[in-house]
Structure formats: structure tokens, C-alpha cells
């Protein structure tokens, strides 16, 4: 997917237009806080116009000045939301271009070479079988039932290198809108028009399907309650001040304009204006990480995850085992063993085989030899023998698992030395895979194949642990090997000899304890576990079943991404919480600005509360309103970017954020309002 900068001028221009469009009361009504501001803006505009006719409750410039800044407050909130949506919209446009309506060759019989009818891709239904040939676009999501081809998926993933897709196994799913570069595929359609992956993706990035997440709903309730409290506190000030004027016998009751200004300043407009932007930006950050969340709920749940199930291979260890040592049998030198091992591996193109050759070269300078020149005969691995090797000059070198080699040497009249047996056990205990090498009926020794734990992963897990997230390694290895790797990688727990059933059971057990479980998966056999997990990230390379069972798809198919996803989820919640605290803490200073100003004529002694020494009652009220509007703009970058996540304990994080957004939120507006007041007074506007 193409990436664009957040403050791309094109996006900003679009957002500015949208901010005005979003003034629609039906849109504003979804957000109680901003709706109150909108009503206030309209109300003060009417009062201002009335003042222009000479019958106003206060001078027209003052009322209209307040009114103008109230409108700005609404617009700034709209702008924040539009900015958050902007990048998604741009991406949706790009995606839409790939959603071309292509003609599909619908097969009459589900096999290659059958006769076909050409129909529009939009008319395909679930279960139809189509053939796609070189250069053609795949019309709809589907499962390959025959053939193999290289496919260009850049429209979806942004990755330009083609990928191989083939029938059977975990790489059998294809996405509509991608293109076959070579060969052909017979595909069974798995989605109806309008429900394809691409369609869902467009809807998601555009935010069209965005529903409020559970936490956002809860926060909205709290904000609405605060708004009602402030509505009461300001509305009752009118009767209170009428009473005060009657009693004091001087001054005028507080004007409706001032009450509206006070109300808007007090209600949590900062968070109210930025709330939806934060949610959209969270989804957007997922998208920038090339993760497609199927719902905002999933993103939010990611922040709550306490257990991560991580596949060993590819996530915790590098994909392949590597040879790390040669352990010779008694009477055999290490070089002899290495030489034989290298010969046995020369034709073995598996990564394990390559690593044996490399180790022999690094350790004993045994150079690569050409098997053809040597006249050697390669013996490939078969399921029956479970060994591979080479025959040359009458030598028969074999390597394989201990029991296979033992059977092999015994059949040739040899025996399996105790020393080698001990070495085999010791390697297994350390988490390695022992590979025994034999020449004829003589066992030469053992190659130590080791899982290489990814660099830095242990530190990453320690960070997660501090943040309260447990990691569980999933592996098909035996418990002994698994335990050793688990210890080396620093995971909290592991599941050895994992089967899909045991995985599912593990998730259920953890969930029953009240934990939220996240996992990644790609195979069809992962689907039940993915469906059960709270946060389930399917690899884009995975099968259709896995993608449908998950609630997120990782377009990069990178299992380590899960960690990033958790952080994005947390960031979204933290940003909301911090801005709510900030918004409420701001009110203290606003009271100090507005209360003495509002009652200056009735109770001049209240000017003792004017601790900021604001120039005049009018400038005090206007400054508070302006500060209230500008702080929204100032915080848009923070809302879009999210608060930086730190892997520290909850208590430390709370302390830090209370200090910055709580204490900072109390202090900052004193300075801000004062500066604005000085500017207003300096310009002679009030």
C-alpha cells in the first residue's frame, strides 16, 4: 500500500474542506461535547446579530468575537477528525484503482483445460471456478484448486516482489485485484461481490465502517456526564447572579454570552474534539504498520492483551537451524568428521545442509568441492530411510537422526558407540538437534544443529514482561528441546509438541483465567485457535480460512508484528486517557479567568481571584475561549501520532502521565491564557 506523509499538503487541503462539511448537525450530534459547542456557536451568533441592531446584552464586537472563536473550536475539532481520516482516504483511492472490473473465465468444469464462459468479475458467486492466466488479474478472492503461479500482490501489500501461490498447503489463497505474472491458476471463488478482501480493506481505511470501540463508548459517557455537570453549574449561574444583583443592588446579571463561553471552556472540548481523531489515527497507525484490523474493537483489545502466543520458528528463532559444532566419536578427529559431514551435505540444499558446509569451511577451512568432478552420487533424503548422504569412491557417507543411523550401521554389522549416544542426548538437552554422521558401518560423530534465537528478542520479551504481558512459545519440538530454547529466548512459558487442538486448549485455559490472548497464524489448521483468540493476526500469505478466522491481517506476514500491534492498541487508550485528564485539569485556570470577570460588576472583590492579572473582564473571557480553541489545534499532532509507548509498569506509567497531563494540564493554561490576554491587550482589541 502506498504510504503518504501525515501532513501532506494534499491531505491538509482536503481536511480543511471536510472541516466545514462536518458542521452538519447530524454529524455533530454523534459527539455530545462538540454538539454543545455547536449549539453555543449558533446561539452566540444570534445574540451577536441582535447586538448589531443595538438591542444586545453586550457590545456586538465582544459577542461576535466570542462567537467566532466558538465556531473555530468546532472547526478545529472537525479538522482533527478530517486529518485523521485523510491518509486513509488517500489510500482508499489507490486501492479503489485496483478494484477494476475484470472479465473472468468461468470454467464449466472445475479443472484446467475445461471449456469456459467469459463473464464480468462482478457476476461471480461463491463456489464458481475460474481460470486465470499469465498477465490477467484475479477477479475475486479464492482458493487455488489447481496450478501454481507467481502473483504480483503489490496492490494489497505494497511489496513489489512477486509471491508464489499454489494449490494445496498454506499458500493456496489468492486475493482479488492481484495479478498473475506467470503460469496459470484454477481458483474456486470464496467471496461474493462487495465482500472481498479489497472491498473490506477500502471500507476499513476509509473509516466508513468505523464503529465506536467499547472503551470509546465508556469514555463518551463520562464526557457526557461531565458536560451535564458543567451545563448545570453554568446554567444555574444566571439565577444565582440575578439574586446577587438584587441583593447587592449593583451591577448586571451575567450575560448569556459569558455563560456560553464559560460552558464551552469547562466542558471537555479538548478530548471531545480529538476523540474520534484518536480512534481513526489508531486504525491508521495499524495500517501504516501494514496490519489490516477488521474492527476498531480488535485494535483496542490489542492494548489489553496479557498473553502472546508466538510460534517458535520465524518469530523467536530464525527460520532455520544451523550447525554450530562437530562432536566426533572416539578415535575420530574433528576434522575427519567435518570433512565427511561436508561431503554428505554438499548436495543438500536445505538451509541446515548449507550451514554444515559453512561451518566446516569456517572451522577447518574445508573448501567446497564439486560433487560432479568427484564423481559422487548423491543419496537424497527419503521418508523411508530418513537419511541423506553421498556415495563416492566406494565410501558411503550418511547423515540423519540418531535412530535411523543406528539402524543403518547395525544393518551393516556395525555398532552405535556409547560416547556418541551420550553426545546425542546432551545436544538434545541443550535444545539442539543432533545429526549423526556415519561412514559405512562406522559412526563418525554428531553434528550439533541449533535453533538460533533472534538477536534482541530476549530484551523484547523482558520489556513485555515489565508491561505485564506474558509470552508463550509454541513449537512442535519435544519438551526437552523446547525448554532449552524457551530458556534461551526468555519466554515465560512454552507449549511443546503443539498440535492445533492443544493450541486451542491452551487459549481456552488462559481465557478462562480471565486473560486476553493474542496469536498469529497462517495455516488452515490454525483457524480454530485464531477464531478463539481475542486478538488473532493472520498472515497475508496464509490460507483463506486463517484470514477469515483472524480479526487482523498482517500484510507483511511478519509474526513479530504482534508486539507492535499490542503497542499501537495501548497507545490509543493512553492518548485518550491523557487528553481527558489534560482537558479536565485545564478547567481550574479557566475558572480563575472567567469567574472574577463574569461577576466584576456585582462583586468587585472577586477580582482577588484574578491571579493572572488579566487586562479586563472582556479580555479574560475571550482569552480563555481562544486558549480553549487553540489547544485543540496544538494537540492534533499528538492525537494523530499517539503518546509514545514505554514498556514500564502500569504504576510508573500512570505517575508519569499524571505528572505531564494532570499537573501540566493545571499549569499550562495559566500561562497560555495570560499570553493570549497580553496579545489581545497589546493589540488594543479589548
Amino acid at each position: 500500500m502506498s504510504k503518504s506523509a501525515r501532513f501532506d499538503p494534499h491531505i491538509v487541503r482536503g481536511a480543511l474542506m471536510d472541516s466545514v462539511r462536518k458542521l452538519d448537525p447530524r454529524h455533530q450530534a454523534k459527539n455530545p461535547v462538540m454538539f454543545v459547542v455547536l449549539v453555543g456557536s449558533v446561539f452566540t451568533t444570534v445574540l451577536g446579530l441582535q447586538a448589531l441592531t443595538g438591542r444586545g446584552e453586550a457590545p456586538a464586537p465582544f459577542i461576535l468575537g466570542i462567537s467566532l472563536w466558538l465556531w473555530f473550536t468546532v472547526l478545529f475539532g472537525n479538522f482533527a477528525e478530517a486529518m485523521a481520516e485523510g491518509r486513509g482516504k488517500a489510500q482508499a483511492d489507490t486501492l479503489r484503482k485496483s478494484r477494476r472490473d475484470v472479465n473472468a473465465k468461468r470454467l464449466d468444469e472445475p479443472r484446467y483445460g475445461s471449456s469456459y464462459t467469459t463473464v464480468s468479475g462482478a457476476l461471480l458467486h461463491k463456489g464458481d471456478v475460474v481460470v486465470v492466466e499469465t498477465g490477467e488479474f484475479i477477479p475475486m478472492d479464492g482458493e487455488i484448486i489447481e496450478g501454481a503461479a507467481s502473483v504480483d500482490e503489490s496492490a494489497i501489500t505494497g511489496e513489489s516482489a512477486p509471491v508464489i501461490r499454489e494449490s494445496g498447503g498454506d499458500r493456496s489463497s489468492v486475493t482479488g485485484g492481484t495479478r498473475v505474472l506467470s503460469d496459470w491458476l484454477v481458483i474456486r471463488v470464496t467471496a461474493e461481490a462487495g465482500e472481498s478482501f479489497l472491498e473490506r480493506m477500502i471500507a476499513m481505511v476509509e473509516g466508513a465502517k468505523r464503529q465506536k470501540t467499547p472503551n470509546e463508548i465508556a469514555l463518551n459517557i463520562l464526557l457526557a456526564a461531565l458536560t451535564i455537570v458543567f451545563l448545570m453549574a453554568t446554567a444555574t449561574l444566571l439565577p444565582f447572579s440575578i439574586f446577587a444583583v438584587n441583593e447587592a443592588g449593583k451591577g448586571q446579571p451575567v450575560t448569556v454570552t459569558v455563560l456560553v463561553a464559560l460552558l464551552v471552556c469547562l466542558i471537555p472540548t479538548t478530548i471531545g474534539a480529538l476523540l474520534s481523531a484518536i480512534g481513526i489515527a489508531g486504525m491508521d497507525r495499524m495500517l501504516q504498520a501494514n496490519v489490516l484490523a477488521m474492527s476498531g474493537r480488535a485494535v483496542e483489545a490489542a492494548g489489553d492483551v496479557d498473553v502472546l502466543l508466538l510460534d517458535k520458528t520465524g518469530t523467536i528463532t530464525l527460520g532455520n537451524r544451523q550447525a554450530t559444532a562437530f562432536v566426533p566419536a572416539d578415535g575420530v578427529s574433528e576434522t575427519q568428521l567435518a570433512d565427511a559431514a561436508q561431503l554428505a551435505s554438499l548436495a543438500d540444499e536445505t538451509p541446515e545442509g548449507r550451514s554444515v558446509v559453512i561451518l566446516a569451511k569456517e572451522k577447518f577451512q574445508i573448501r567446497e568441492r564439486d560433487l560432479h568432478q568427484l564423481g559422487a552420487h548423491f543419496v537424497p533424503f527419503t521418508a523411508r530411510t530418513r537419511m541423506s548422504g553421498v556415495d563416492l569412491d566406494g565410501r558411503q557417507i550418511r547423515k540423519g537422526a540418531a535412530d535411523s543411523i543406528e539402524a543403518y550401521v547395525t544393518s551393516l554389522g556395525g555398532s552405535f558407540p556409547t560416547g556418541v549416544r551420550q553426545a546425542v542426548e546432551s545436544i538434545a538437552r541443550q535444545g539442539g538437534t543432533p545429526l549423526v554422521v556415519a561412514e559405512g558401518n562406522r559412526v563418525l560423530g554428531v553434528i550439533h544443529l541449533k535453533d538460533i534465537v533472534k538477536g534482541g528478542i530476549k530484551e523484547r520479551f523482558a520489556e513485555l514482561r515489565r508491561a505485564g504481558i506474558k509470552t508463550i512459545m509454541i513449537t512442535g519440538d519435544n519438551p526437552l528441546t523446547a525448554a532449552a530454547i524457551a530458556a534461551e529466548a526468555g519466554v515465560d512459558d512454552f507449549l511443546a509438541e503443539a498440535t492445533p487442538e492443544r493450541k486451542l486448549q491452551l487459549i481456552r485455559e488462559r481465557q478462562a483465567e480471565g486473560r486476553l490472548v493474542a496469536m498469529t497464524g497462517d495455516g488452515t489448521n490454525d483457524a480454530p485457535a485464531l477464531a478463539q483468540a481475542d486478538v488473532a493476526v493472520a498472515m497475508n500469505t496464509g490460507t483463506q480460512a486463517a484470514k477469515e478466522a483472524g480479526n487482523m491481517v498482517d500484510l507483511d506476514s511478519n509474526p513479530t508484528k504482534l508486539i507492535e500491534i499490542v503497542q499501537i492498541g495501548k497507545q490509543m487508550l493512553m492518548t485518550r486517557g491523557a487528553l481527558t485528564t489534560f482537558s479536565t485539569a485545564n478547567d481550574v485556570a479557566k475558572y480563575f479567568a472567567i469567574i472574577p470577570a463574569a461577576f466584576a460588576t456585582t462583586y468587585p472583590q472577586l477580582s482577588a481571584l484574578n491571579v493572572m492579572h488579566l487586562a479586563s473582564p472582556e479580555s479574560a473571557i475571550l482569552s480563555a475561549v481562544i486558549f480553549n480553541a487553540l489547544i485543540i489545534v496544538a494537540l492534533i499532532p499528538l492525537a494523530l501520532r499517539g503518546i509514545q509507548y514505554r514498556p514500564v509498569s502500569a504504576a510508573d506509567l500512570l505517575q508519569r502521565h499524571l505528572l505531564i497531563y494532570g499537573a501540566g494540564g493545571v499549569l499550562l493554561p495559566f500561562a497560555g491564557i495570560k499570553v493570549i490576554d497580553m496579545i489581545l491587550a497589546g493589540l488594543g482589541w479589548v
Partner: protein
Amino acid sequence: MSGNDLTQLGFYLLVLLLCVKPLGNYMASVLEGRRTSTLERGLYRLAGVNPDQGMTWKVYAAAFLAFNALGVLAVYSILRLQHLLPLNPQGFGALEPHTALNIAISFATNTNWQNYGGESTLSYFTQMVGLTVQNFVSAASGLAVVAALARGLASKNSESIGNFWADLVRGTLYILLPLSAILAIFLVSQGVIQNLDGYVPVADSKRVLPMGPAASQVAIKQLGTNGGGFFNVNSAHPFENPTALSNFFQVLSILLIPAALCVTFGRMVNDNRQGWALLAAMVLIFVPLLLIEAQVEVGNMEGKEVRFGTTNSALWAVATTAASNGSVNAMHDSFTPIGGLIPMFLMQLGEVVFGGVGSGLYGMVVFAIIAVFLAGLMVGRTPEYLGKKIEAFEMKMASIAILVPPVCVLLGTAISVVTPMGLSGLQDRGAHGFSEILYAFSSMGNNNGSAFGGYGANNPLVNLTGGVAMFFARYWVAWPVLAIAGSLARKKTVPVGPGTLPTHTPLFVGLLVGAVLIVGVLAFIPALALGPIVEALQ
């Protein structure tokens, strides 16, 4: 303040805190149903109640509301039929409907706002069968609700939050009755009267000395955070509160149960630290305000009893408004502006700093839920309190509970200051007059019942608006709290981990104190500015 004053305040706090743990543990054993008696079982058999039958929150709330409605009806009927009922040596007549309704709601809601003078209006029968009974059962109702809330937090995947009838009976039988009996006997030893005689004429004058069963009502009035005085001047009256010692034990009784309930709560949710944290938050708000109050009242003897002095009057004023007690031993109207502001502000905080029996603690837990919600967001995790996830439903209910009291106070005050009838009983003018009205509605709108004085509130308008305020402040807070209890009971408990925000640490206590203060300050600063703050700046 002198060293002696500080010592007295310190001694009071010390004794209070020493009582908290044993009483708290005892109350936990009662509310968990670990104590039983033949009397209790007999009562259940009589009423046809199975105390072990769990109730869903809706059934529990319905029982609570129905029982309280019966209480209102009973008191109202007694007041309206007073002239026909026995034990009326002075021959007092029936009360006006609006006055009777206000009193009935006032006592059923544990407010004990009094728009009447006891010795000049009510018969002994009314005081004993009407009001004292409500003093017991309204406090027991509060105990029941907080016990249900604690059970909701402690249980997992359960529909039941306990049995209201069992909670009501146990709270009355094993907590309120025994403590009241002890206190009443002690008060009699100090000279508080307890008789059913007619009023005694004073020789050579037209005056009479009022008589009556005062001690039995005074004891529960303090312990049950009711506060309704037997006599008009409440515990400033020598027959209600004759000595320094009676004063000490009465003011101790005001905070005793609300403070000890924190420990009970900790026990019931199986984490004692949680109870101590809530108590710490209460003490942290209480002590500074107490010290300021005592300091600003130094030298101001107007409206105070010579036998108590300023410090003990200040202590009482702060304790009675921190708890939703409302009894007085001095006239708050005569306090300095700041001295009047502090009690008013304590009520406006929603009666959660100790607060009423049960109601104070459940109010504080609601604030804890709000604080935990904000804190949870700030650390990037769906908030949880005691292992229970706080979600939209809990926030909705918590918001209602936080919202209702300030709305009642502000609207009630607003209606009174702009209507002739609302202003008719006002004694003082200007900002002080405003303070008097604001105080009255802060008191009713938070179920305190304390009177500032200076505002004759016995007219149809104030009786009705005040009655509505008291009603909503009690039931529209208790009902959402029960809803929260029911919803939390159904949830599973999330295990504690490093990602869990601990709710027993000083940091969280600080946050809780901050949440309580900021909601109170933000809602009431404008109103306070026009009353006591203006007075103070004059």
C-alpha cells in the same frame, strides 16, 4: 490553635482509627452471614424469607426500594395522624401534607433534614415509632447496598449479589442495635434524658422544660449518620449533649461506622489493602479541612456552646458534614465565611469522605471506578477495579451516581433564589443569604440533613423541591450502585499482573482524592464564589 486544641483533635483521630479495625472486621463477619441467632432465624420464619436465597441486582434493588417506600409511607401516615396516636402528652396536632412528606422522605433517605422543631411539633410516638425506626433501617439499608457492592466485586460469574432482607436484618440486629444500646446507656449516664413524661413547667415563668425519650434516639442518630435531633437545636441542647464526654463519644460515633466500613469492605473483597486505601483517601481529605476549620473558628464563639468551645465545635461541624450525619453542636450560620464554606464543600463532594453509613463508602467506590477508568486509559489498558473490567455499563451507572447530587443541589438552589416563596424564609441578605440557601440544598441534595440555619425552609416549595432532591440523591445513587454490583458480579475476575494498575498504592489514593476534589470543585466553584467566597473577600 493551641497545643491543647491540636492534642484534642489528634486524640480524636487516634481513637477513631484504633476502633476501625476491630469494628470493621466484626461488621464483615456480620455482613458475610457468619453470625446468627434464634431471634434472626425467627424473624426470617415470620416474614417467610430464605436468607440464603441470592437475589439478582434487579430483585435486590426492587426489595430495597419497596422497603424504603414503605418507610416513607409509614412516617407520612404517622405524621398526618399524629393527633390520633398515643404518647402525645403535649397534644401536638397533625402536620401539613408538604411538611409531612418532606420529613418522611428525609428520614427514609437517611438525610434527617428537619423543617420542624422536635420538641414543639412531634409526639413521643412519632419520634420513637416514626423517626427512630427509620434511623435504624435507613442506615441498615445503606449497609445492605455497600455489602451487595462488595459481593459484586468479590464474586465471579454470579447472578446474585446477596439477599437484601438478610442484609437488612443482620445490619440492624448485630451492628446498629447493640452499638446504639451501649451509646444510649452511656449518654444517659452523662445526663441525656430518657423518659415519657409531660413537659415540666419552670417555676415563676411561662416556660417549660421539654422531656422525652432523647437518649435512645440520639445514639442511633449519631451511629446511623442520621443526624436528626430530638430537640430543635440538636446536640447543642444540654438534654441531648450535656458534657464534654458525651460530646466526644457522639462525635466519635458520627464517623465510627463509615470509617470502619472501609475495613469491612477490604475484608469482603478479600484484599484488606483496598479498604485501607479508601480510608486513607477519606482521611487525606478530612484532616486538612478539619485543621483549617478549627483554625478559622478560633476566637469565634458566636453560635457556639461554652461547654464545647471553638475546636470541638469545628471538629463536630467537619465530622457531621464529612459523614452525612447533619447533627450539630453549634450553629453553622454563625461560623466565619471559610468556616461555613468547609462544611458546605464537604457535603458537595457527594458525601463520600466517610459519608453516610454504607452510602459514603459506595459513593467512594463509584469515584474509585471513575478514577480507575481514567488511570486505566492513561496506562493503555481497559481499566479494571479489583480484577473487574470497567466497561460502558459501569461507566454509565457511575456517571449517573456522580451526576445526580450536584444536579439536585444546583437546581434546588436556583429555583429557591428566584422564587418569592423560596426566598420567603431567608433571614440574611446578600452573599450570606445565598450561602444559607446553597447550604440547605447542598445538605438535602447529598442526604446530609445538616442545617446552616437562617433559612426557614418549611414552606410548600422548599419542602417539595427539597423532598425531590433528597429522594433522587439517595435512590438515584443507590440504584446505579446496585446495577454496578450486579454487572460486576457477572464478570470474571482478571488475575493481577504487572500490567494491572494497583489500587492500593499511595499513587492511586492520590488520584482518588484528586478525582473527588476536582469533581466537587468544578461543579461548585461558581456557586461557592457567589456565597462564602465573596463573604470571605469582603
